[in-house]
């Protein structure tokens, strides 16, 4: 259908809404972050505890992205390339982390690995601490970002169908070869977007990690938790300086998304 000419009133209402709710907070974070000037900003983000928090955030991000990319590829494959009973249940199970409150996500791991859990004596014997420690933060991050990669790939795999892969299999190609030569070229853009989404979400996770971390400064502090501490100590410009790192990341993410969507759309038409 031909695009109608622009009617100004609805567009202006939308623009004002977006400006107030989305753009203003971004502008505010950046303004506050640089309120002490560039040197102050740099001093804030290179402060010792900030760097420690950044390292832990990067560690849990890498773990979540690697685990969820592997899981996402296998899960998407299992859900779209075969027919079997219980397929829909499996699909629903993968999406559960999306509908669970982050606080509950933290709670279930406290209950599973914490002091009241039947697993706790075993973990103690092995000298593994999960709760209030780095493994707990990683596992909570993995839970929260579990569906991100698979959800991006599944619609694409469903759309392209299985004919090409079946033909390749009948001609004797192995699973890895089929995946690399046929499947991967189709899904590469959505896979990339899924990974980027998973990256951003794992760096930004707050609720679940907050429950599980015990707030040990310098030991179990991720960037968002560190921001919370700074903010609650009324250290506003350090809090917003650290925030600005994640805001920049969010903006990069949006740009990549819009590029991926553009490229993906082109690919489908070809």
């Amino acid at each position: 259908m031909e695009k109608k000419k622009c009617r100004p009133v609805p567009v202006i209402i939308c623009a004002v809404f977006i400006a107030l709710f989305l753009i203003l907070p971004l502008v505010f974070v950046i303004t506050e972050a640089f309120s002490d000037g560039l040197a102050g900003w740099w001093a804030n983000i290179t402060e010792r505890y900030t760097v420690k928090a950044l390292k832990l955030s990067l560690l849990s991000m890498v773990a979540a992205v690697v685990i969820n990319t592997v899981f996402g590829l296998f899960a998407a494959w299992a859900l779209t390339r075969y027919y079997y009973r219980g397929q829909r249940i499996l699909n629903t199970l993968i999406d559960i982390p999306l509908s669970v409150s982050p606080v509950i996500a933290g709670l279930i791991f406290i209950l599973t690995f914490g002091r009241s859990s039947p697993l706790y004596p075993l973990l103690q014997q092995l000298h593994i601490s999960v709760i209030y420690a780095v493994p707990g933060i990683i596992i909570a991050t993995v839970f929260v970002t579990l569906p991100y990669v698979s959800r991006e790939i599944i619609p694409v795999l469903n759309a392209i169908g299985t004919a090409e892969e079946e033909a390749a299999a009948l001609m004797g190609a192995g699973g890895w070869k089929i995946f690399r030569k046929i499947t991967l070229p189709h899904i590469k853009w959505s896979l990339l977007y899924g990974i980027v989404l998973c990256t951003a979400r794992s760096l930004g996770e707050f609720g679940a990690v907050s429950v599980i971390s015990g707030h040990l400064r310098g030991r179990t502090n991720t960037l968002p938790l560190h921001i919370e501490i700074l903010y609650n100590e009324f250290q506003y410009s350090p809090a917003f300086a650290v925030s600005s790192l994640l805001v920049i990341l969010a903006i990069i993410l949006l740009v990549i998304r819009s590029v991926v969507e553009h490229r993906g759309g082109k690919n489908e038409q070809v």
Partner: protein
Amino acid sequence: MDKTLLKRKRIIPGFGLSMGVTIAMLSIIVLIPLISIFWKMAELSIGEFFAVIFHRRTLAAFGVSILCSALAALVNLVMGVLLAWVLVRYEFPLKRVMDGLIELPFALPTAIAGIALTSLTVNTGWVGSVFAKLGIDIAYTKFGIIIAMVFVGIPFVVRTVQPVLEKLDGSYEEAAAMLGAGRRTTFLRVVLPEIRPAALTGFGLAFARGLGEYGSVVFIAGNQPYKTEIASLLIMNQLQEYDYAEAAAIALVMLIIAFVVLFVMNVIQSRAARRAS
């Protein structure tokens, strides 16, 4: 025969491996931890469970959570449909930027949204000072909670309605216009019935998201028991006091509400799909 048919469909290799990895991961990361809620709950008798759930403070927290996320989802429903309409039907400068920005609440960490919205809306903030002159407090009231929930919920309605509007054939609207229907009648009688299932789904998703939201709300809410304490914050408080069983009980009720909402959305969607076919 059924078996051979199923077997024949599995020409593509890797079934065992991919199913194995999927089910193993789901069990370790999702299923076993979720079951732990029921495990913990078993420590409470039925009487104790209801005592926790129907405690005044719990009911008040659920009231705040449900009221605020419902109102926020309503705002998102109206604005989401309008945004989707504008983005699909109109051409204007910076449209792609606006389209991209819709996704911001997914990309921005909730804690940052929380501190930014709070600092903007306190009585000395950029927005808060304007409202303070009118005698309206935003931060540390239910109004503030709703604003945070509107922020996190924006993308849901837009992203569910947008594809439906894109597929909607303009010829029906043209026909309605030719037959003398005004713009309002055309929208209400022709467009609205088509996008209603998608809009309701978006509403449900935004509602569920608001209900479970923590990071963006905790800063702006003020967290006063009975007034601005939300259910997820109550769980947090109980965890800090090591009342695990009580926390598990409240979590269970929240999970049930979320799943009921999602189930209703699924029913609406599949009904709409059946009607379309």
